[in-house]
């Protein structure tokens, strides 16, 4: 599988990153098989979080067995020093490892959170301390919030090494500022910050729970995913061809194999095909069938 430099971290990540939330839906034995399957495809970057149910615990055994082969990303939703320091220890403990390669502020959403994490008593101070102690190697941030806020974060966190944010044809087709993650990608590339793409396989939001109760959803994703091999391949190729360092696999284990296959076969996507996917989702989105053409 193709690898790319993850910003200035020195890590060469495979173009697919395994989103280990998928393990949460599997029994331990299935989780072990899944990790072996992912490693068989050559994937060398894993991403997990303490908020993904049992994912950390289920990743643990195989992670420890293959520790050298895996660049491990983890996250914290804590914004203050004490919380972050505590949750880091807890993740190290649950994963059963001494070091997390990439520790990320998880799900930045509000400007006030940025004030909090960058403050003297903020989460960043705890992560920097952990770096000095060798418990963490690199610092990252994840957000599906306002692109402007992420740009602010780049300005305000000098030692930021990676960013994780949404990128797919739906988002890429919208010029409005609130979807301008392309500006984030551009800025991150200028600053040599590694970029991880999420929601690459999102087709749209789930129908309201009044129409489709949560327990009746066919996939364990935050969003309704595309789910045929062709669509998955198109979406992977699209995301990987935007210039991201790596694309995170979707949350449902049923989709992971298809994505790994797409990632193994990735060979670029020309611009006319990228535009075709953007046009497709632009029209999918439009409520009124008024347009004959593109």
């Amino acid at each position, binding site marked *: 599988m193709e690898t790319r430099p993850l910003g200035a971290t020195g890590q060469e990540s495979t173009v697919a990153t395994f989103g280990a939330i998928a393990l949460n839906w599997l029994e331990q034995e299935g989780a072990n098989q899944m990790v072996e399957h992912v490693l068989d495809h050559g994937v060398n970057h894993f991403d997990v979080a303490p908020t993904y149910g049992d994912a950390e615990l289920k990743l643990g055994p195989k992670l420890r067995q293959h520790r050298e082969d895996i660049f491990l990303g983890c996250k914290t939703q804590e914004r203050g020093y004490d919380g972050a320091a505590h949750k880091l220890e807890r993740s190290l403990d649950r994963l059963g490892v001494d070091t997390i390669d990439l520790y990320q502020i998880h799900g930045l959403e509000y400007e006030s959170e940025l004030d909090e994490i960058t403050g003297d008593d903020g989460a960043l101070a705890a992560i920097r301390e952990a770096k000095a102690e060798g418990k963490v190697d690199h610092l990252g941030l994840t957000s599906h919030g306002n692109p402007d806020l992420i740009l602010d974060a780049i300005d305000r966190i000098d030692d930021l090494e990676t960013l994780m944010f949404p990128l797919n044809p*739906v*988002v*890429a*087709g*919208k*010029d*409005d500022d*609130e979807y301008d993650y392309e500006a984030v990608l551009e800025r991150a590339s200028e600053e040599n910050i590694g970029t991880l793409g999420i929601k690459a396989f999102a087709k*749209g*939001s789930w129908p309201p729970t009044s129409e489709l109760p949560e327990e009746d959803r066919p996939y364990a994703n935050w969003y309704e995913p595309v789910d045929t091999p062709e669509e998955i391949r198109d979406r992977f190729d699209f995301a990987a061809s935007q210039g991201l360092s790596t694309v995170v696999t979707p949350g449902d284990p049923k989709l992971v194999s298809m994505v790994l296959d797409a990632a193994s076969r990735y060979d670029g996507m*020309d*611009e*006319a*095909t*990228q*535009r*075709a*996917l*953007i*046009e*497709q989702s*632009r*029209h*999918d*989105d*439009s*409520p*009124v*069938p*008024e*347009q*004959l*053409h*593109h």
Partner: protein
Amino acid sequence: MAEETPSQTVPETVKAAIADRPVEGRVCLEAGAGVGNTTAGLLAAGAARVYAVTDDPAHAAAVRDRCGDATDRLVVVEGDLRQTPLRPDSVDLVTAHGLCNLLDPAALAAVAAEFSRVAAAGCHLVVDDYEPLPESAAVRDLFAVENAATELATGRSALTFYPASLLRRVFAGHGWTFDRERTLLDPVPWTASHLSAHAGVVTDAIAGLPPELGDPLERRAERLVEAIGEEFAGTMYSVAMTRPDGDETR
């Protein structure tokens, strides 16, 4: 994703078609304005003035709605492109994005002549359209029904897909020099929303036909929309041409 208001988003196809053309400070003719995608693109790229011409009053209103409030650089013209009120030699850039497939050969000839009449020396022309669809494309059946319905109702085809090579020759015959060609879409996504818009053309066309003629066409169109769902087929191209500086061709 959040609800979409009719946003200022300019489609990537339009951006790719005009990206390498001089737009800033230029007077543009957006021929066949539709819902204003290219109009929005030209205005965003800094056009000095855009004449957005369409023969469809609903489209004219849509373009005004979308772009009109924001600028004094837009003139929406409701009229026929075969004969526009524009003065000779008054336009620096002509765009025809998805227009030509709606013109039958006679109309195409007249529109090409009109572009040449209004073009200033050194004028640029961008013609974006669809290559004829491959035999295997299922949407061809829907377009065939659409053409059958409009032929019966008006004596004219609704759709003609001209190869880029043919349009190049048509405009070359009017003194335009070929500059470049690029692929905008490959493949072209014919989404459910496109297909039902095409079925809508059939429904409109048969309104004037006797039911025994029209109804089977409408049913067939509806069945095809259902059966096809969505299809990726064919390509959309962008051809750019220019007019020589000194105009010795007229």
